[in-house]
């Protein structure tokens, strides 16, 4: 039987036409003179992980140099999800950028929407309403909880624990339902607007959140029972991927990564926004800077988020959500159809956009992953000159080679999971 062309093309790439073993670019390159035994421990091996691999938490590619099982070097490759958001933003009105922010850190979309709106408001000097402020605090803390739930669940899977993942995703589903009933979307919420929110929460929504706040700590306790004193979990995480405080600052880590190393830097406390300074909550700090401390910090942060949401719900009173400036927020649709003036403002905003004064602002917020910075430069037109996202997991991931110093190959998976990366934000 004659071989078909298609079979020829699908043959093992390491063999040449005569079936002889040919050296492939990134495999174990064995010289013909060496015996098979030389491979064990004598040569460094290069292993390629990703970009399509569940344990890389997105399209991340890691090239790992191994000596036996010990990691000698890790080279991360990113950019597979690059979408040019920052460039796109320069061609859009400020409110049109909000849907782009959903797609950066897609595990906490509401927090991203709000971070961008806050930066524009700082640039324009807008004072938001009290109800809008509290709704934003609630939305930010909801995002923190769902993001940390994904982190703890998927990291558990990476280390061989499947059940807690299901418990946590069940709770995450409840917040997604709340997001859906508020914004109509589960993932791409686009909840914030410059000077307000896309909508007030629907009737009965606050009761749904109160029910979540009341029952969610049960799940935290269950997960705590499964993980915190679990011998396998402790063995895989304690003393692995250690970063001391000095290095953590030097590598510009932020969020739980930085705090697990013992540095008490939380933007909510150190540069308060949205009136976070008037809420009573604690910032958990780690001691050893290993994966286990990162886990403890994130678990405690979820409990603190519950406290913040309880206080915000108690303070929440009926009232206007959007600022009363028709140059910034759209008039109600009913008025835009019946009132001439409202229609003019509606038309001007949709066609011309909001025009901040010429200037620039850096606005950092504490996102689940770390400090999310928005750096906006305006030249007085309706579209920004520069919209820079300071992505927290980009900088956290940059420290991966340092974290993997002296680790084993199996630790690389655990360490990479502990960083809590989201490639939409890293590649933008």
């Amino acid at each position, binding site marked *: 039987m004659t071989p078909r062309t298609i079979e020829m093309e699908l043959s093992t790439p390491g063999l040449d036409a005569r079936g002889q073993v040919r050296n492939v*670019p*990134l495999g174990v390159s064995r010289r013909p003179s060496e015996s098979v035994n030389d491979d064990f421990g004598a040569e460094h091996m290069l292993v390629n992980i990703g970009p399509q691999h569940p344990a890389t938490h997105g399209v991340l590619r890691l090239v790992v140099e191994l000596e036996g099982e010990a990691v000698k070097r890790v080279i991360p490759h990113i950019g597979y999800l690059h979408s040019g958001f920052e460039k796109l933003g320069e061609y859009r009105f400020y409110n049109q950028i909000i849907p782009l922010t959903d797609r950066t850190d897609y595990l906490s979309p509401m927090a991203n929407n709000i971070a961008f709106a806050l930066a524009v408001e700082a640039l324009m000097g807008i004072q938001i309403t009290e109800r809008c402020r509290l709704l934003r605090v609630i939305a930010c803390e909801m995002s923190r909880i769902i993001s940390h739930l994904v982190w703890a669940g998927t990291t558990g899977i990476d280390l061989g624990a499947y059940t807690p993942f299901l418990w946590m995703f069940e709770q995450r589903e409840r917040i997604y339902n709340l997001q859906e009933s508020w914004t109509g979307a589960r993932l791409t919420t686009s909840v914030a607007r410059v000077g307000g929110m896309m909508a007030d929460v629907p009737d009965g929504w606050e009761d749904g959140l109160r029910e979540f706040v009341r029952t969610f700590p049960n799940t935290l306790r269950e997960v705590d029972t499964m993980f915190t004193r679990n011998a396998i979990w402790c063995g895989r995480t304690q003393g692995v991927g250690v970063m001391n405080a000095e290095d953590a600052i030097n*590598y*510009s880590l932020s969020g739980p990564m930085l705090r697990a190393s013992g540095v008490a830097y939380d933007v909510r406390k150190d540069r308060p926004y949205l009136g976070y300074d008037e809420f009573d909550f604690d910032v958990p700090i780690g001691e050893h800077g290993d994966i286990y401390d990162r886990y403890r910090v994130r678990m405690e942060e979820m409990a603190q988020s519950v406290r913040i949401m309880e206080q915000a719900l108690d303070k929440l009173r009926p009232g206007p959500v959007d600022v009363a400036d028709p140059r910034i927020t759209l008039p109600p649709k009913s008025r835009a159809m019946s009132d001439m003036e409202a229609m003019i403002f509606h038309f001007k905003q949709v066609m011309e956009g909001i025009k901040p004064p010429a200037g620039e602002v850096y606005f950092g917020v504490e996102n689940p992953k770390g400090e999310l910075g928005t750096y906006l*430069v305006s030249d007085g037109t309706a579209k920004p000159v520069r919209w820079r996202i300071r992505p927290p997991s980009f900088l956290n991931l940059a420290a991966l080679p340092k974290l993997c110093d002296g680790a084993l190959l199996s630790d690389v998976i655990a360490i990479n999971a502990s960083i809590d990366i989201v490639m939409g934000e890293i590649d933008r």
Partner: protein
Amino acid sequence: MSGASADPGLHTAADTAVALRARFPEAVVRSHTVCGQVVVYVTNAGAHAVLEWLRDDVSQQFNYLTDITCVEYRDPERELEVVYQLRSLDRKVDLRVKIPLNPDGPLEVRSVLDLWRGADWLEREAWDMFGVKFRGHPDLRRILMWEGYAEGFPLRKSFPLRGHWSRAEQTRQALEANPEAYYSLEELSIAEAYHELPLDVRERLAKAGKVLP
């Protein structure tokens, strides 16, 4: 300046700007406050000394590098700026330092990787997106775009939103892209595989500017 005192904890960012003018009179071009945030413009030649002093001086302690990025304005008369966003974690003060560069001239500044390790990927991204070279960076490769990307620097204002080339040309290039080009020379040297690569692969690598001696 109000707020100046012997206690380093009471220095504001505005005090830092005044102290910088006094200490580096020829390096500091100007400074101003915008949206309540202090911005200091420094010359390219003096920037590294200024940043090092800001990090190390006991009255400043800007130990945390928040961000490095670049800004190019739509107005072609305005300079392209390299922006350093600094933070002192202990003193809770932020400062923005800018290096103005001529957008038509050579875009090159000194790397601050020796001061903050966090500058590594930030500088690579600034090079990738704006074409600003960071002198002294040991591994200044493209980071978000692939190696061998030849269309230019995407965040420059001279770069059209959809790129310089036609869609057909971009597709042709993407289909022609050789996966070997994604391996850096460093990786190939670990595997000691470069010299064992087939000749045609080595030729394609050379096209992407990668040749090992």
